[in-house]
């Protein structure tokens, strides 16, 4: 292995990163554009940020989206962790392959189908058990958790497969009951995977349009839905400002995740 990248590779890498980040950079630049026309630069201004902060509709949607993302990510981590532990630790139970397959299905299922089937389920559940009476916050959280549980389970399973089983056995050998082993040993050791899984679930929920458009109710419009519908009426610099803020928030979250994960358990 040479530790110097070959020239061609370096160019390819540069192009790749440009392709990935140039649109985001443009978006941030244009969020400071003075003009109402999104693509014509007339001067620097922060007025769209000011307008954004006075836009009740967007602020409400942003707040709702954050809460939905946090709730569904937490739910997904709880369920996904249990599923990941079951898959990685309880080796060969009956129908394991079916369990593993069903768990992974949402990873490859087209979102339109996931959204449609969830909608059907909520409607029939309402008829049978009387919940959910109306679609809204609860149904979006459940729908997003359904999607991201699979991602969390896969991440947790990979982390568990990578660590020495003997550590758990050592804890049992020292007198720790199975529940204590889980809370004091297994959980702390997979914590980085839980953080990563939570953040992934959070972002999946935050940027979902397709599933939300099926299961959201009239009073509960998430931020992506608002952006999507307002963009259809014409691009607005306010949306650029909003997007820039989201990029900032997501970057901070990613930095936090990287920091929490920094080679502590080498």
């Amino acid at each position, binding site marked *: 292995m040479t530790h110097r990248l070959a020239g061609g590779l370096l160019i390819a890498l540069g192009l790749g990163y440009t392709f990935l980040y140039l649109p985001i950079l443009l978006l941030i630049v244009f969020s400071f554009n003075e003009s109402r026309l999104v693509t014509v630069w007339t001067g620097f201004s922060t007025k769209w940020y000011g307008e954004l902060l006075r836009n009740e509709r967007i602020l409400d949607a942003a707040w709702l989206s954050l809460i939905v993302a946090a709730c569904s990510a937490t739910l997904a981590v709880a369920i996904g962790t249990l599923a990941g532990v079951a898959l990685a630790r309880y080796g060969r139970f009956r129908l394991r392959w079916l369990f593993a397959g069903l768990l992974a299905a949402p990873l490859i299922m087209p979102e339109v189908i996931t959204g449609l089937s969830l909608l059907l389920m909520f409607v029939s559940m309402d008829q049978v058990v009387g919940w959910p009476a109306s679609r809204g916050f609860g149904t979006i959280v459940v729908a997003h958790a359904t999607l991201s549980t699979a991602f969390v389970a896969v991440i947790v399973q990979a982390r568990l497969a990578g660590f020495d089983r003997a*550590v758990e*056995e050592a804890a049992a050998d*020292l007198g720790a009951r199975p529940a*204590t082993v889980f809370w004091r040993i297994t959980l702390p*050791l997979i914590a980085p995977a839980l953080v990563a899984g939570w953040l992934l679930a959070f972002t999946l929920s935050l940027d979902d349009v397709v599933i939300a458009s099926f299961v959201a109710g009239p009073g509960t419009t998430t931020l992506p839905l608002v952006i999507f519908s307002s963009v259809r009426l014409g691009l607005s610099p306010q949306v650029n400002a909003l997007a820039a803020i989201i990029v900032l928030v997501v970057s901070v979250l990613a930095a936090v995740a990287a920091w929490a994960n920094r080679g502590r*358990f080498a």
Partner: protein
Amino acid sequence: MSTDHRRPLLSVESISKSFAGIPALADVNLQIGRGELFALLGASGSGKTTLLRIIAGLERPDSGRIRIEGRDVTGLPAYERPVNTVFQSYALFPHMTVRGNIAFGLKQDRLPRETIEARVREMLELVQMSEYAARRPHQLSGGQRQRVALARSLAKLPKLLLLDEPMAALDRKLREQMRVELVTIQKRVGITFILVTHDQEEALSLASRLAVMERGRIVQVGTPREIYDRPASRFVASFIGQINLFEGRVIERAGGMLTIRPDDGGPDIRATDGAAADVGDAVAVAVRPEKMRVGRAGPGANVRRGLVRHVEFLGESSVVHVEIGAGPRVRVSVPHGNGAAMPSTGDIVEVSWPAEAGVILRN
């Protein structure tokens, strides 16, 4: 620390265990007394770790019982057994400090804080790791990790401490130093140790008694001296130290003395009767290199003539490799410095050993 065989601390009774139909342990029986430093010696894959895990409660036997102080613990989970283990990989908790690792087992017993702190301090001193109490395992060297693993499993003062190849990951010099330390620590705490190893030198130098394992069975149990001087089978004889084997057939048995006609056509060999072999049995006479000498011994000794092929210098002694007719190559250990002349390659020499130096092996 007296060893009491009549009321053993640990009894392993007819333990068998298979993995996917392949036997890893077959009808293992073992009794270990209080205060022993007992070694389980065997080649890799002979079932040592499996036996240790069954004693610890980390693996369930297919059949058989484990008793500790007479109490049947076969059905008890690991966390309820008065047994602690030093794992081969050490298995330290990476997210806890050295202090946290050592305190972990004590916390499970809900001991008062002061007791835990005092015990942790004591254990840190015992393994000379007091300055490292606040470190994480990944900040320690291999030898230091091993000390922490030892302290962690000793902290609960178990009735029995199991050590799975504790020195395997250490370099030679450190290994020899830890060997001495381990014996010292064992004497100080007075806890029964079972030490698994594939290193015969380690087993012989450390253990008060040892068991030799071969393919899931215990083939001999005894003190290092007994096993070295009177191996029970060809396997044990060749697994432990160097040994010369003469294959042959018993032709006479009289007055506690056997006469064996070797298959290589040489003169008959006389050996004292240890293994109750009968006339006509195929046996091997096993003789340690240091029990043989170059030159003629006293009357009644066995003598063979041969050609010196190679002289191997080993510091305090040399090993002379002698080719005997069509027979096997014989190794004779010759100490330096007692005036005896050292033969050189190409010499024709006589090799001799007294009748009582030969061990009769029947299998």
